[in-house]
């Protein structure tokens, strides 16, 4: 008899608990109804990529010495460096250079290791194409600079959440010169006590790989 009553009690408690959870869930979704949309209306609005964004690679033909370091550090030896040895001058003569962005994983190793800094990352990410072969960029295509989101008159440039001033959640209508929340690396550096010359040298070189 008591076993049965206990069963009924447990069953009821289960049902009430389930209903309670349901009500809590409904509370969450109902609360979301009054929140502002957080979406970016993409073709008309775009987020400004962060400063260390790894987009399509830019390449300067004239700086390249055809050393092929980029090929060696690439996980799949992707860059194609087409050079011939000039017997008369005993120097490499670069003829063509290409990277296939249909295969590239944008790891940035080539940019990191290039001795003459002829490779760099851009903030271009719109690489959609009708044909995958058109993603194989030669040295002319690699030398083009992308249109910046901030300078495109057809696009409303929006700051990402971390670049917004303190307490601001909506990037619309934020003053572009308003500082982001928290301190910039330079400001953090300024607060640090001036240390010995050995440690002083490292942060400045890290700031901009010239």
């Amino acid at each position, binding site marked *: 008899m008591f076993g049965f009553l206990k069963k009924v009690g447990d069953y009821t408690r289960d*049902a009430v608990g389930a209903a309670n959870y*349901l009500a809590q*869930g*409904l509370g*969450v*979704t*109902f609360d*979301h*109804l009054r*929140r*502002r*949309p*957080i*979406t970016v*209306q993409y073709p008309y609005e775009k987020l400004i990529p962060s400063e260390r964004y790894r987009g399509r690679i830019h390449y300067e033909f004239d700086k390249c010495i055809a050393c092929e370091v980029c090929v060696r550090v690439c996980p799949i030896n992707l860059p194609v460096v087409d050079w011939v040895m000039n017997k008369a001058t005993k120097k490499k003569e670069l003829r063509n250079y290409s990277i296939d962005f249909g295969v590239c994983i944008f790891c940035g190793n080539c940019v990191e290791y290039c001795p003459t800094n002829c490779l760099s990352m851009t903030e271009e990410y719109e690489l959609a194409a009708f044909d995958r072969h058109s993603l194989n960029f030669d040295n002319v295509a690699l030398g083009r600079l992308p249109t910046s989101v901030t300078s495109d008159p057809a696009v409303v440039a929006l700051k990402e959440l971390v670049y917004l001033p303190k307490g601001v959640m909506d990037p619309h209508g934020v003053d572009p010169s308003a500082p982001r929340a928290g301190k910039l690396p330079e400001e953090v550096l300024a607060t640090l006590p001036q240390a010995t010359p050995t440690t002083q040298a490292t942060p400045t070189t890290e700031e901009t790989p010239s």
Partner: protein
Amino acid sequence: MVTIPALAQVAQVGLDLEGSFELAMRSLGLSPGAAHLLWLPLPMVLVLVAAVVGVLVNVWLERKISAAVQQRIGPEYAGALGVLQPMADGMKLLFKEDVIPARADGLLFTLGPVLVLVPVILSWLVVPFGQNLLISNVGIGIFLWIALSSIQPIGLLMSGYASNNKYSLLGGLRAAAQSISYEIPLALAVLAVVMMSNSLSTVDIVNQQSGAGILSWNIWRQPVGFVIFWICALAECERLPFDLPEAEEELVAGYQTEYSGMKFALFYLGSYINLVLSALLVSVLYLGGWGFPVPVEWLAGWLGQSVDAPLVQLITASVGIVMTVLKAYLLVFFAILLRWTVPRVRIDQLLDLGWKFLLPIALVNLLVTASLKLAFPMAFGG
């Protein structure tokens, strides 16, 4: 100008659109038979239009509320706030190629969606928007709806089987199993209400709740029945959390997998009309139908107006329609919110819930209602 005396004449027996229309036609010089013939197609067209407009509003609400819950904007370019988006969807489906798979059974494949849609539209026959604002006040009203909704699983199973596709077949079988098992607690919940109002007619059920405004609504006397009915209605409409027949993660789109163009649109239309219909019936059975939270007769009395005055009659009818639609769409809103709140149940959990939880509770509810009716005939419609 002809209609005003005619309206006043029929106002003695309540707002009677049919009578006043026929009177107006006859005063224009038509024979009674011709006047009746002119009247006949009007309610049918009206209900068809009401059902389709209801679906358009429903689709728009679904997309906008879904967007709001997920902090998106939703459709906004087709018309102001995207109100024309459902129209655009419908137009797209209208122009899409109608494909019948090569190895499918053409006849059954075509018949399936029709068999799903027709009973749902037919059920609108018994939905009252006012004392005389329904197509036909059949004595077996609510029973007719339950009977008609049993035809739907046949259509679903038929289209699933005829598609010659394993996902379609599984979806069709699930739809049939789900509809049949949730029909029983649904009918039992309705039975308790019917027992209290001593009638199967939807108009009588609403009238029985209209005594003291919001306090006399059935939801206070049948809270358990209300919950059971709403859960079962969601399952019958294949809404989340019970959308197993079209669970896209496992069954592509269930019985709809092979459908495109207008046949798919029929399924789409059917499911949304069914949702609106279920919401309307919940408001009729449990939320006082067209009744205003404060009885309109009391309001008219406080304002010193006669209930039978033509203007008051007109206002009463309008308030009735607005209240019915408002209650129904509040329930639709709740269903959409529920869609983004709860995850889909498994098929075994679904059948467990139907047979082991809802069915016994519905039976107990029925028995308790019966004994309460015997014990307190005043409050429980003895």
